[in-house]
């Protein structure tokens, strides 16, 4: 029935249109398919190309390693190296040495009007922040720009040494900066590694030379709150000059000894190391309670 309808005048046109549309759609789909296949083929080819290059490099490296082993670790020049290659080697070599200079604590770069110094700070083997000073040498020695924090007495130090002995100036400034970096590092380590023992937040000032914090001390199965107030009066020192440790009033008298021991520890060793030693001491205390010395294991 419906087919007969399609054979009327309008029906034929409509039918033709429909066929045209279908053909168009098919063409589009065909084009899309071809594009997709092309793209896929392109990607596959790229992967092949990269794999080949990767394998080539791997082989090159293996050969290089083999040659090195045969020559005892030093590359002997198989062909006479070009002058350019030698120069490029030397340039890379000097650059590497320049890059290492920051490890010594004071490095810098020559600028058009002077020198840009870089003071490195570190705590034991970990290098921390670096501070920069753009120093002009003409008409007189002056600091044009710097990244030293304001709580470091830069102006005082500059007034004393900058004009007469710039090395001394940098050395004194480095002492201040390194001591500050070390104090900050210790406080950070305490917060990071002993957060479970700390109660509340660690209070500190920007120069990190005044710290106040509360921490838990276990004793006889109970936990007591200690308060510590550390004052670092020497700005070039990373150990406190004063360490006041107190326990809560309800704490047993025996804990006063522990507080004194802690105060002593804080003044002698770095903050996080002091806490390490507390943990160890408490562990051995616990072990002693569980299996007292002299009892059969």
């Amino acid at each position, binding site marked *: 029935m419906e087919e007969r309808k399609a054979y009327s005048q309008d029906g034929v046109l409509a039918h033709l249109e429909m066929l045209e549309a279908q053909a168009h759609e098919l063409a589009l789909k065909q084009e899309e398919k071809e594009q*997709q296949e092309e*793209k*896929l083929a392109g*990607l*596959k080819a*790229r*992967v092949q190309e*990269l*794999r080949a*290059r*990767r394998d080539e*490099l*791997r082989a*090159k*490296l293996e050969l*290089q*390693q083999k040659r*090195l082993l045969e020559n005892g670790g*030093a*590359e002997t*020049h198989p062909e006479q*190296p070009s*002058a*350019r290659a*030698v*120069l*490029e*080697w*030397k*340039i*890379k*070599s*000097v*650059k*590497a*040495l*320049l890059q*290492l*200079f920051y*490890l*010594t*604590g*004071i*490095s*810098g*770069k*020559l600028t058009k009007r002077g*020198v840009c110094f870089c003071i490195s*700070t*570190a705590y*034991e*083997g*970990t*290098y921390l922040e670096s501070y920069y000073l753009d120093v002009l040498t003409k008409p007189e020695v002056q600091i044009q720009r710097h990244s030293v924090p304001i709580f470091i007495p830069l102006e005082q130090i500059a007034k004393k040494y900058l004009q007469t002995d710039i*090395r001394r100036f940098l*050395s004194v400034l*480095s002492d201040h900066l*390194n001591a500050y970096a070390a104090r900050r590092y210790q406080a950070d380590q305490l917060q990071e590694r002993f957060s479970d023992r700390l109660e509340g937040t660690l209070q500190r000032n920007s120069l990190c030379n005044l710290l106040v914090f509360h921490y838990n001390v276990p004793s006889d199965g109970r936990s007591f709150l200690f308060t510590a107030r550390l004052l670092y009066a020497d700005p070039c*020192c*990373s150990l406190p000059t004063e360490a006041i440790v107190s326990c809560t009033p309800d704490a047993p008298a025996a804990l006063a000894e522990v507080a004194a021991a802690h105060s002593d520890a804080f003044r002698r060793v770095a903050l996080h190391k002091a806490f390490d030693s507390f943990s160890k001491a408490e562990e051995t205390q616990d072990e002693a309670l569980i299996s007292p010395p002299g009892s059969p294991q």
Partner: protein
Amino acid sequence: MENSTYKVYEDEIQLLEEEIKLLAEKYDDVKQESTFYSNEEILTSIKLFQREFQGESKGQECPSDLKAQLESLEREISFLMKFTGIQFTSHSKKTLEKNENRTVQKHRLSGNCRSLPFQLEFQLLETRNKENVSAVITDLSIVMESGEYSDLSKFVSSTEEHGNLLLFFRSLSSYAEWYEHRRCTFLHFKAKYPDIVALPEGQLGDYIILRNPKLSGFELMIVWKIHIDEEGRTTPVLDLLTKVPEQVLEQKMGPIENAPTCFRSMLLLFGIETTIENLIKVTGLEK
């Protein structure tokens, strides 16, 4: 569905590109680190290089650029070494591990800090994160010709233990300055008062002897040690020792016993040079 197929290939492409970059870098690193050219070879190359490209540029990096680059770098490092007093005489490194965020290198560095030679070996771990690069030193080994620098050995082992490379350099600089100062001071007085001043251990020793050529048996020994604590703080420590013949000792016990204390007060009041000079003058007096 098609998209996921693309993604598989695109991911692999990205991985391969990264791997290729790392492999190429590794090859270059190994090449750089296992090669060594002496200074003569480098000078010859510079001359050759200039001759090869006389008048030609061929679109490559202009020959004067490479030479200028090298000269500029050498000027920089020469300035730094002169300014800090830390001269590096040899350096070799080996890249042990390298990927996008981590590099581990083993370094061997020798040099001297003013006149004090040192040899270092350490591992440097550099980690890259979004904001900056952090560096950590491990396996630090420091060799200093000890014996002469016995004050230093305790400090050196402590810094080695904690990997404290920065502290080592900072403190060594300060120690080296005092060392130089002591040496110059001793030499100065030896030159100025050759009859009175003796340096039994030479200018690098840590004491001088003052004696009056006309009075035998009477000697003053000034010991000047440079103390360096574990935090790297350097302090000069001076002491006076007297050697007096027995007869004089019986007569003038008082002043001789007090001598070391007086010496220390003088040091505080007048400083090292003036104190030593005063003692020399006193020794030279006819008594």
